[in-house]
């Protein structure tokens, strides 16, 4: 456990630094300005990973990470406004870029399986979006009618 925490801290520090640099180049936020925000995001992630290890349920660690982030920023939570201000300086897209760089390198290994999906991805993808959109619209229609809004 301790060994894992040590490893996580080291990895998060490196990834955090890469994100700060991306945030600086792409979104013109100076690394020092974004530093408190990235530290908070790292602490939330660490807390989520540790809770995931300690609790016996089979919930993904990201479920805890998301909930912790949400709770500490609900208006009225001590320090929520400051956390907001700090984390707002870390651009969402700056976080996403290194993730996708790691993902590209990782996907390379199963590229031929991945490529086999090919045109089917486009067909299924359209149905994924159609199903989500139409499903939501139909339920919305029913609920709005029951409520007498439309």
């Amino acid at each position: 456990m301790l060994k894992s925490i040590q490893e996580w801290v080291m990895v998060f520090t490196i990834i955090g630094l890469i994100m700060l640099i991306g945030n600086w180049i792409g979104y013109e936020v100076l690394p020092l300005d974004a530093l408190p925000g990235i530290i908070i995001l790292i602490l939330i992630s660490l807390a989520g990973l540790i809770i995931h290890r300690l609790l016996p349920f089979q919930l993904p660690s990201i479920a805890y990470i998301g909930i912790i982030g949400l709770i500490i920023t609900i208006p009225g939570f001590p320090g929520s406004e400051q956390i907001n201000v700090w984390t707002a300086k870390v651009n969402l897209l700056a976080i996403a870029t290194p993730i996708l760089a790691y993902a590209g390198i990782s996907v390379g290994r199963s590229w031929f399986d991945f490529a086999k999906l090919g045109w089917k991805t486009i067909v299924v993808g359209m149905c994924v979006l159609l199903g989500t959109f139409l499903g939501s619209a139909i339920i919305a229609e029913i609920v709005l009618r029951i409520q007498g809004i439309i």
Partner: protein
Amino acid sequence: MAGQALNLWKDWRLHGIVLAIVIVTELIGTHGITVGPGVILLLPMLYAVIIGLILYFTPVVKEKQSKNAETLVFLSVALLIAKFGVQAGPAMPEIIAAGPAFILQEFGNLGTIFLALPLAIFLGIKRESIGMTHSIAREANLALITDKYGLSSAEGRGVMAMYIFGTVFGSIFMGLLSGFLATVTPLHPLSFAMATGIGSGSMAAAALGPLVAAFPEMKETLTAFSGVSNLISSVTGLYMSIFIGLPLTVKLYEVMTKKKNNQKQDSKGV
């Protein structure tokens, strides 16, 4: 997943490559190409995944880097989910005020499973279809599948394929789709406005555009409904997938493929 993380931080070769990719892609920046009602958004993260992929096939990346990269995707995604969390907190009072209609409507997002999963299985896609169809595969879902199955699993390949499809074509397709459906179906524009909130800001904006253009007198209401709905989706989407979407997809996949296999065996027997 993260349990196997050992000495990953020492893979300087990998971190160096990623840092270089980030610097190059962020320097290129974001560009948009307008197509009909939507925009093809070219984001640094898209170039990043492509460059990473190409580098895998060069001597720069060794097998070890690619293996380590998988766990690093999972750990860096944790930071993204933390960011989603802190963005959601301030919106909670608004969401509670918005009322149950918005939250109930979230169940409609499961529509993808009933429409797209059978099609994917019909097309002969195996366990990849679970990753592809359990949601619209935005970042949070990419994180969920990576956490549960790993990115190099069949499910991981599926969610990655859908993630890339959605990022490149999502907003164009949603723009065309919403304009078309709003004119050919008898559903109320307000219902469609609520449906635009599927958990992706750019897709919601693209879907709202044609609605507002078709019903300009309702512009304010449509925009407000879309905004609140998208907010709720981005907060609840992950948990919807964890507790309902993914288990439902897996169950349905098992039921459907079992049936299919039995049929195959039956026909073989004959």
